[in-house]
């Protein structure tokens, strides 16, 4: 469900679970972290994209519910942290084709990217405190990408934002008109990055990383998210959410 291929100089990583809006299972998230660190050593640019109607709906919450000891949620958080760390410490730029939606863990991935292309009607955000989950795991990278003030309001407000607001905040680098245009535009952007001489871009990225407040390996966000998993409050809210979701789906 994670497909990674080297196409010319571009390392393509595809989230391929379109029937579940590319929701990440613990296995997928672990594979994603591996794929990023592995391909970053071979390619001149990484391109992360999703199959189907949206880029990524976040963690697979059904998986989280099925493990009463919270091992699935913990493993998802660990792998998300590893993926973000691998994106930030990658020697080559990372482009994301974000079409349709990137929610919660999916939106967190944008914080690790260098360049994000989305469509105007895209839906982005972190509605996870409603499930008793803290989005702190993505705070260090998000704050590096869009600044501390914007990251604070994005992470504490569970509402979703559209393309224009995301562009204004710097979460998205460029917008295209329709979701179908996103992946082709991102592929062109990745080609352009890959065609630049590698030394200059590598040194610039390294230096920018050193100037950032939180280093790529900073675990403080992960620790904060892990600290609130497994509590009664979290499990209760998750149960409640999935029950209401199932009722809505059954009623259709």
């Amino acid at each position: 469900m994670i497909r990674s291929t080297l196409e010319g100089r571009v390392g393509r990583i595809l989230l391929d679970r379109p029937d579940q809006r590319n929701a990440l299972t613990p296995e997928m998230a672990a594979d994603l972290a591996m794929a990023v660190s592995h391909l970053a050593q071979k390619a001149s640019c990484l391109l992360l994209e999703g199959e189907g109607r949206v880029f990524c709906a976040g963690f697979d919450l059904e998986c989280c519910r099925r493990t009463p000891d919270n091992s699935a949620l913990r493993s998802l958080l660990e792998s998300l942290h590893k993926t973000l760390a691998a994106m930030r410490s990658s020697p080559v730029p990372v482009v994301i084709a974000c079409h349709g939606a990137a929610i919660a863990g999916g939106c967190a991935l944008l914080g690790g990217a260098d360049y994000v292309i989305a469509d105007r009607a895209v839906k982005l955000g972190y509605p996870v405190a409603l499930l008793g989950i803290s989005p702190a795991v993505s705070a260090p990278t998000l704050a590096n990408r869009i600044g501390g003030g914007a990251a604070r309001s994005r992470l504490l407000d569970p509402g979703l934002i559209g393309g224009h607001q995301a562009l204004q905040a710097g979460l998205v680098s460029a917008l295209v008109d329709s979701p179908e245009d996103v992946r082709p535009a991102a592929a062109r952007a990745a080609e352009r990055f890959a065609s630049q001489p590698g030394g200059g871009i590598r040194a610039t990225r390294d230096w920018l990383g050193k100037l950032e407040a939180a280093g790529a390996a900073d675990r403080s966000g992960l620790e904060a998210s892990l600290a609130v998993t497994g509590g009664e409050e979290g499990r209760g809210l998750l149960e409640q959410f999935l029950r209401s979701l199932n009722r809505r789906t059954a009623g259709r």
Partner: protein
Amino acid sequence: MTLATLDIRGRVATLALNRPDQRNALSIDLIASLRHRVGELARDAGSPDAPRVLILTGHGKAFCAGMDLRAVLDDPAAPPRLLGALAELTLEIRALPHVVIAQVQGAAIGGGCGLTCVADISLTHDSAKVGFPEVDLGVCPAVVAPWVVRKVGGGKARQILLRGGLLAGAEAAALGLMDRSLPGPNELDSAVRELADRIAAGGRLALRATKELLNRLDGSLDADVVREGARLSAEVVASPEAQASLRARFESS
């Protein structure tokens, strides 16, 4: 009359500056009253039934017209006390586990605009006037500068604090000084309520952990830098240049 009112309804608390005849200008007494209320919120925050969201707002037409410097001009000991108390108030608000939303209607000027930057999320309306005209008066917004830098980043903070003057709500939102600007005060009121309810539906521990981490990441609880800013602001207020400029300003108004 209570200078700061606190109203708690379920998971949402509202703390309001209540000096409407002075456009909620921050006097030593108003700041003391706000600190007292914030202390109550902090003390009760451990209870599971405690509010999760705090709306910070002002009674009357303006959120806050800034520091009440007129009242302290003739007493050299007063500016350090006023600015020092503001510094402590900002630190105490930021340390609250509640998600703080500033509802900025009418105007948020100088120290008042600084308070909006201490909130986690700030909403205003297009015709509101916000910003930091301190440098126009020969004074220095040092006490609130750390919060402005955390809100918008160093580059934009330079632009906002050094240019002086005021911004319309919509411009402030484009710069990131406010998170959102609504068409008018009525829309602002409903947007704030809706946002507060949406956030308050979240898990208490999840919200708290997220806010704690954000405070750690941006150094929000570093009291020294804010206190140093208060000292610097007070020093500049005491300078002959600032005194002359403030007197001229108050005599003409």
